[in-house]
């Protein structure tokens, strides 16, 4: 689990508990119980768990309190607190569908085989207005087979993410995976959330046959890398590193030519419109913009990229990533300093730009980047280390020797594969 954002609000446990216990009408303007409920995820102690349970029992229906209750249930789920199960069970009857969603999710995280709780979760499938996808996930995760036929009713749901979860759950319960092709097809859905979430369903089903299609799915590489990695880990020794290596490296390289894009332009837009396209929240559209810039505006693009970087992309973690990558594809040597800065940017939301910069520096081919890339092998970020190895290899360096015993199995496997090639 990636926990780099968990400590966003630098509170102590005592401060967060005191804040959470303060009645809403006595809070100062500068305080937020919602933040306190989020922050207690960092403290897996009985005191924190009891404070969160007290917050769940504050039933004032005002919006400010409602969101605190919900967040408290979610945090109890993160903390996997079994003592909270009876209380969370009562939340299944809540009027608020998001409270119910969080309660169902938390039950899945904590885990239970109590048939009363599981049946109450399953009954929510008959209740309209609920987040049926999350309900299906929890029932499948906890293996509650009596819900199978009720879940089957959702396999044709008009909501693609619910249908995807239902098909997956039915396959898992029946051990008949013949329908999983429908989930794989969702990787090409026009809705970005359908594409992203179908990867989660493929992970849940341990459906590693879909790794090549996941690699080509037009969503952020964060989702694809997570999918490939978790599927490979679930398969264990059943899948050799060499089998997944080409797909994994295509994802880390992340060139739009290696993606099956789902969007098209009727006419290639002008460069300023394409630059705006780098700021989209649907990465499928960003990749289309990147590809169109490369095909039509390779000459003019660097100037426009520097301008948008200075003005906005330096603060926007999505566009930042694409600007960095584009400088690499364009082999634009004057961007060297910008790429080095991106390579060492430690702000957590810019993390994917670091591996992106490592790849871009490999494209530039400037030997000065070798020590910079080697410094990245000292970090704990596996995709950054792996991308650095790919570029060091391109630059003719034997950086792999440094990580031949790396704690991360993918980095280690890559280093060993480079070692074998050079032996």
């Amino acid at each position, binding site marked *: *689990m*990636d*926990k*780099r*954002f*968990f*400590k*966003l*609000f*630098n*509170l102590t446990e005592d401060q967060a508990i005191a804040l959470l216990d303060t009645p809403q009408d006595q809070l100062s*303007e*500068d305080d*937020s119980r*919602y*933040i306190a409920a*989020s922050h207690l995820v960092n403290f897996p102690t009985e005191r924190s768990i009891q404070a969160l349970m007290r917050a769940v029992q504050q039933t004032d229906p005002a*919006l400010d309190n*409602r*969101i605190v209750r*919900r*967040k408290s249930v*979610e945090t109890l789920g993160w903390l996997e607190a079994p003592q909270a199960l009876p209380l969370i069970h009562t939340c299944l009857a809540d009027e608020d569908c*998001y409270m119910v*969603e969080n309660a169902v*999710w938390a039950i899945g995280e904590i885990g239970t085989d109590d048939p009363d709780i599981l049946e109450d979760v399953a009954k929510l499938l008959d209740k309209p207005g609920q*987040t049926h*996808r*999350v309900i299906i996930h929890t029932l499948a995760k906890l293996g509650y087979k009596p819900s199978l036929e009720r879940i089957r009713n959702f396999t044709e749901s008009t*909501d693609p*993410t619910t249908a995807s979860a239902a098909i997956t759950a039915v396959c898992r319960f029946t051990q008949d995976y013949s329908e999983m092709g429908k989930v794989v097809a969702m990787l090409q859905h026009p*809705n970005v*959330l*359908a594409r*992203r*979430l179908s990867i*989660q369903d493929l992970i849940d089903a341990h459906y590693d046959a879909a790794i090549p299609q996941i690699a080509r799915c037009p969503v952020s590489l*964060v989702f694809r890398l*997570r999918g490939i990695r978790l599927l490979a880990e679930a398969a264990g020794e059943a899948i050799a590193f060499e089998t997944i290596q080409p797909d994994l490296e295509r994802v880390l390289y992340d060139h739009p030519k290696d993606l099956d894009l789902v969007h098209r332009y009727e006419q290639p837009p002008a460069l300023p419109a394409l630059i705006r396209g780098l*700021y989209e*929240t649907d990465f499928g559209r960003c990749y289309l913009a990147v590809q169109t810039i490369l095909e039509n505006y390779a000459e003019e693009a660097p100037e426009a990229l520097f301008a948008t970087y200075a003005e906005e992309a330096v*603060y*926007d*973690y*999505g566009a930042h990533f694409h600007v960095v990558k584009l400088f690499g594809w364009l082999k634009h040597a004057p961007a060297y300093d910008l790429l080095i800065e991106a390579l060492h940017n*430690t*702000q*957590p*939301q810019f993390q994917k730009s670091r591996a992106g910069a490592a790849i871009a520096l490999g494209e530039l081919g400037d030997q000065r980047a070798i020590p910079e890339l080697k410094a990245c092998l000292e970090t704990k970020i596996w995709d950054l280390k792996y991308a650095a190895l790919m570029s060091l290899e391109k630059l003719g360096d034997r950086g792999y020797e440094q990580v031949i015993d790396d704690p991360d199995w993918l980095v280690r496997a890559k280093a060993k594969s480079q070692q074998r090639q050079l032996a």
Partner: protein
Amino acid sequence: MKSVVTTVIASADAAGRFPSTSDLESVQGSIQRATARLEAAEKLASNLDAVASEAYNACIKKYPYLNNAGEANSTDTFKSKCARDIKHYLRLIQYSLVVGGTGPLDEWGIAGQREVYRALGLPTAPYVEALSFARNRGCAPRDMSAQALTEYNALLDYAINSLS
């Protein structure tokens, strides 16, 4: 895209009937509020950048502990995180004002997004805090008419409620 009109027609069609009197009343209600909604949409569109940046700047000021230096909680981190995503949510709120229903928020900003935040361990608190600020800061008639502000705040509440 789901709106009051499409929902009414879809449910009438599913039952093979004409829209009922109460269906037509809800469409009528939505149309009556359209002027206020479009006013709010227009004001929001012309001030999107200012509203978003004001929301996150105010958040930082309001929560001094967000300013503490460190890898995951520096001011820049919080600002840039919010700047991008708050603008995205405000844009979806603007679409929802135009449509006259929560369809754009539901389909593009909420359904499934909650799962993504949980799966990747992403914090929802910055969005909730910044959108709450935007809601509390709106003022009629300074920013827009009272009716327009009601429509705008209802959607901000909807976004805060469903993201948290």
